[in-house]
């Protein structure tokens, strides 16, 4: 009896502060945002709450009729579908290269590849704007050697999003690479030794040992990459402000604009919850796939 009481005390003592903080800084804001998403809370309402109306589901119905929302949604999916797998593949490739015994000075390479991850995005964006510049840019300069006509990377509606994808992948792959390297180091080396004795080629070893052993790591990486990429914001915000022709407008950017630029808090909250729902679905799907793969 006494021990449960003590346990309870300890529980309150240890968990209390964290629970309080989570309640104040997470639970209350989320619930109030949810409530706000059913109102037309805006700049008029900030000054006087009487100016806010409870409008039920109108924000949500309006959202589904809003062409900009669909554009933003399409752009975000385009980004996730293109940049996600690309980012994971590049990370895996880089990790494999760094993990071979032939590479000298691994530390230097690892540092170099990881550098973009820790560099401020603003600095990266400035450099990449020069790389993408239609007249003076490095990329067009290089392409000129192959007789490719100059492309206005960030100004062309077709190329703007791929340009953002390229930059994001370059900036982020180092992070996943580190996790992949850790995953690779966890594969017991006797598996490879046994395979070598059996006479398996490098490719056979890769297919039969490396890839299957990396499945948990890969799933984890693709999950966090997906969640992160769905929240695409800073890259287009700095590089293109959503243009040209709204081709790089992302959901989070649209939400930010509506909320903090135009103070349509109600509408903006509705966008946030739709995004939450999409990411939630995506995560559930990935978890289901993970479970299935584990069982086979």
């Amino acid at each position, binding site marked *: 009896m006494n021990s449960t009481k003590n346990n309870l005390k300890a529980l309150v003592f240890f968990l209390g502060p*964290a629970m309080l903080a989570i309640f104040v800084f997470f639970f209350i804001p989320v619930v109030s945002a949810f409530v706000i998403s059913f109102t037309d809370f*805006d*700049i008029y309402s900030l000054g006087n709450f009487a100016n806010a109306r409870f409008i039920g589901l109108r924000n949500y119905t309006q959202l589904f009729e809003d062409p900009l929302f669909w554009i933003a949604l399409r752009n975000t999916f385009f980004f996730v579908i293109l940049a996600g797998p690309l980012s994971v593949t590049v990370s895996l490739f880089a990790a494999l290269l760094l993990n071979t015994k032939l590479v000298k000075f691994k530390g230097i390479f690892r540092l170099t590849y990881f550098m973009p991850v820790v560099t401020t995005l*603003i600095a990266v964006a400035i450099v990449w704007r020069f790389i993408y510049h*239609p007249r003076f840019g490095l990329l067009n300069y290089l392409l000129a050697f192959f007789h490719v006509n100059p492309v206005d990377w960030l100004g062309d509606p077709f190329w703007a999003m791929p340009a953002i994808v390229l930059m994001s992948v370059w900036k982020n792959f180092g992070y996943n690479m580190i996790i992949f390297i850790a995953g690779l180091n966890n594969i017991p080396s006797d598996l490879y030794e046994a395979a070598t004795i059996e006479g398996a080629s490098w490719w056979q070893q890769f297919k039969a040992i490396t890839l299957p052993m990396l499945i948990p790591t890969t799933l984890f990486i693709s999950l966090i990459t997906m969640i*992160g990429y769905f*929240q695409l914001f*800073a890259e287009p915000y700095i590089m293109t402000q959503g243009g040209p022709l709204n081709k790089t407008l992302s959901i989070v950017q649209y939400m930010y604009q509506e909320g903090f630029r*135009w103070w349509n808090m109600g509408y903006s909250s509705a966008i946030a919850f739709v995004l939450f729902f999409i990411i939630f679905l995506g995560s559930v799907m990935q978890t289901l796939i993970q479970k299935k793969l584990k069982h086979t």
Partner: protein
Amino acid sequence: MKNLSSRIANRPRFVKQINTDFINLWRSVSSVKSACYFLFLIFFLSLSCNKKNSSQTEISFWAMGAEGEFVQKLVPEFERQNPGLKVKVQMVPWTAAQEKLVTAFASDNSPDVYQLGNTWVPQFSALGAIENLDAWIQKSLTIKREKYFEGIWDTNVLDGKVYGIPWYVDTRILFYRKDVLAKAGYNVPPKTWEELYDCSKKIKAKLPAEKYPIYIPTNEWAPFVIFGLQANAKLLKNNNSYGNFQSKEFQYAFTYLINLIKQDLAPLSASQVTNIYQAFAGEYLNMYISGPWNINEFKKWMTGDLADKWMTAPLPNMSGVKYPGVSLAGGSSLVMSGHSKKKELAWKFIEYLSTPKVQVELYHLINDLPAVKDAWEDASLKDDIYLKAFYDQFQNVVATPKIPEWEQIVFSKLQQYAEYSARGVMTVDEAMKAMDQDVNKILEKRRWMLERNNK
């Protein structure tokens, strides 16, 4: 405030944050994390308790960007003239200014005096954040309506009540390459729309294909609105509660500008022009409708042979109407928080910043053009050849519709449809129809409020 500024600082790291949260194994981290949260909470609470203790003779003043950086230098003289008074200047970056000011108001922490872009005055008055200054002006010896440019003063007047005092002013005029225009036969800059078009055509004929006579970027709404106003368009109707961009007048002006882009007289994509001054120096662009903030930049870039090759001129107008054509009344105003407990002192500071002498000093510090007409008598302004066009233009400036939604209408919608039209995704007719639909949606709340107030 703390909470907000840290959130702003973190914004570019959105993506990364999620990753780090995940990867640092939850269990080991959460204890450290909760401790941090807790410390933050205590810190936050103690911060908010401290706030009210500032002395009764200190007023707080928030200014944006360069003003925030340099206005400090004007403070010592004020403090010398008013012994015992102190002014605490807080600099706020322009990009975060609106967000910070609104949040400060929401948490009842507004500064006593602050700078507001004059298009923001309607928003903050709608919020109920700023003081009606009529009574103060009536008593004042320094601040009188007739001392200011009419169009500029008017931006601060809502329903006949004054909410801000113009601090510095700006407007849009024409920057141009004298030599290039002269080669096209224009020794004086174009005075009508027809001349502007003709001049552009002639310049284009003399230039290689990748160079352009004029720059009308679709991510700057001002020229579209200015030309609309020159064509006598009423931008909004029914007490500013419906869009009126489909009007014959606005469509005429809009088409005129879009055609400049479509006929390759102006570049299509803004990303081609990373540095407008360099482009000017290289004759890539030869005319640009912009504001006084560019004068110094032009001086900096157009050096040596180029130093006397550029000039400013008031805006052209439709033919048969008086020159110069109308332009926008821009600039910043000084406003007083309605919640301030030191209004007397706050007003004193506003008066100080509005004296001609201090206005000239501000011009010398950061080249902000004085709002007070007397200050323009100073030689440094009067004798500047580039400023003459501005002085002339200020005689004919008007305010944009004074409603809180205006910024959203032009920044998010007008610019978007200008781009759609310029790129040929939509015809001007389609674009303006969609524009009005969007604007009507934005103004729905305003209509509701007007109707409720009428009851």
